[in-house]
């Protein structure tokens, strides 16, 4: 059958980060890493990475300073819960709103 002339059939996703859409907008609490406490960041050695391992959305990087892809992080807080150094704080998203959308501030 020749179906190549059909544009798109339905949504289909394959294994990979964030293939369900920009789920970062669902977040209420944002994980913030204190690199002074984070083991690989502090020691400069590739160790620990429990945040990377436990993240259900695979948004934590396995780098010496782990970073979190906020485009897809839903803010579940599992990384903060699992971090043995207590280096990750879950901070209210409202704290960041004014910084990212200056025009929405009372002054602006």
């Amino acid at each position: 059958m020749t179906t190549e002339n059909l544009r798109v059939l339905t949504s289909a996703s394959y294994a990979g980060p964030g293939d369900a859409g920009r789920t970062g907008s669902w977040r209420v609490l944002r994980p913030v890493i204190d690199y002074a406490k984070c083991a690989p960041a502090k020691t400069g050695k590739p160790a620990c990475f429990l945040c990377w391992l436990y993240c259900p959305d695979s948004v934590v990087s396995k780098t010496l300073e782990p970073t979190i892809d906020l485009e897809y992080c839903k803010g579940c807080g599992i990384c903060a819960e699992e971090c043995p150094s207590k280096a990750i704080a879950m901070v209210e998203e409202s704290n960041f709103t004014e910084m990212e959308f200056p025009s929405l501030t009372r002054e602006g």
Partner: protein
Amino acid sequence: MFVFESGNIAAATGAKLARVQVIAAYPITPQTPLTEKLSEYVDSGVLDAQYVAVESEHSALAVCIGASSTSARAFTATSANGLLYMAEQLHWAAGARLPLVMCVVNRGIGAPFNIWNDHQDSISQRDTGWIQIYAKDHQEILDSVIKAYRLSEEVCIPVMICYDGYYLSHTYMPYDVPDQSAVDAFLPPYEYRHNLGPKKPTNLNTVTLPGGRPDIHGEFAPGYMELRECLHVEMVQAIDIYRRIDGDFAQLIGRGGNPIAERYLCDDADYVAVALGSMANQIKDVVSRLREEGLKVGLLALALYRPFPNEFLASELSGRKGVIVFEKAISFGHSGALCSDLQAALYPCTSRPVVSNYILGLGGRSYQSSDFYNAIRDCVGRGSADFQNPAWIGLGR
């Protein structure tokens, strides 16, 4: 080869010739003999397919959806409340763009409980995104099932083949069974684009956000609304594709030519009757009789109801004096569904016929050729019709 069998057996034969690989169905009158026959074919080894016995119609269609996602050719059949029990999966199959064929053996819906024929079951599911084709005799049932697989697999939209319970399902008439080799040449094996399998793990029909988004490759992945628009546009395109497929069928098997509707004595007709299903054959006799009496009357036996052939109907019926729509279903509080669709198709015409609507045969209420005769006669010279108050044939009888 000509055989003398029932409409349900014609449908089962069509499915067998299409080499269906998965059949899942739940018995319901008047569909039951169809899937019983398929079960027999599978059991005796005549048909190499999996027959999945399920506990409900909802599961029957769910099994077909799963099978079709793995590129297996799947078939199911149902009637009335069984079809309604599938409703959620009907939308799912169409939204997932799965090629499926289902026979709907038309029967009245309860409540009150009724097992006899009308079209309310399939008509009420017209907006599920399925293509709907109505057959008016056994030959059309068999041929339509085979053509429906080709259409369905080419446009990736599921197809319902609807035919009248009892009038067709349980009556016997002769029909030709094409050679398997001809059907094989017409209907090549099918592969679904997203062909689900262990070698290609895929999450199909995922939560699709209102907006589009870049996928993991950075390419635009459509949102829900783009997918809906696509289904609509490509279903409209299916009208011409069905014409082409019917042409191929005619070339290989030697029958066809009226995929959208059969025109009977329409050329110079001032008044044209429009009907779905087996009653159209009965109306042919009435039209012939009225012709003998000097009335310029014709019949349009509509086969394709979704996608609705708006352009075809407008060009066919524009300029006529009257159109008489006979229906075995009603959109409560409005009019017959076919009639209102037809009115909309005719709206752009500069010369619009008077459209009269007759409701008949609900829940198996009997109707006779004289009913069609009197109705068409009544419409001759009529200047207007009450759209929201269709005439009911046979009330109080």
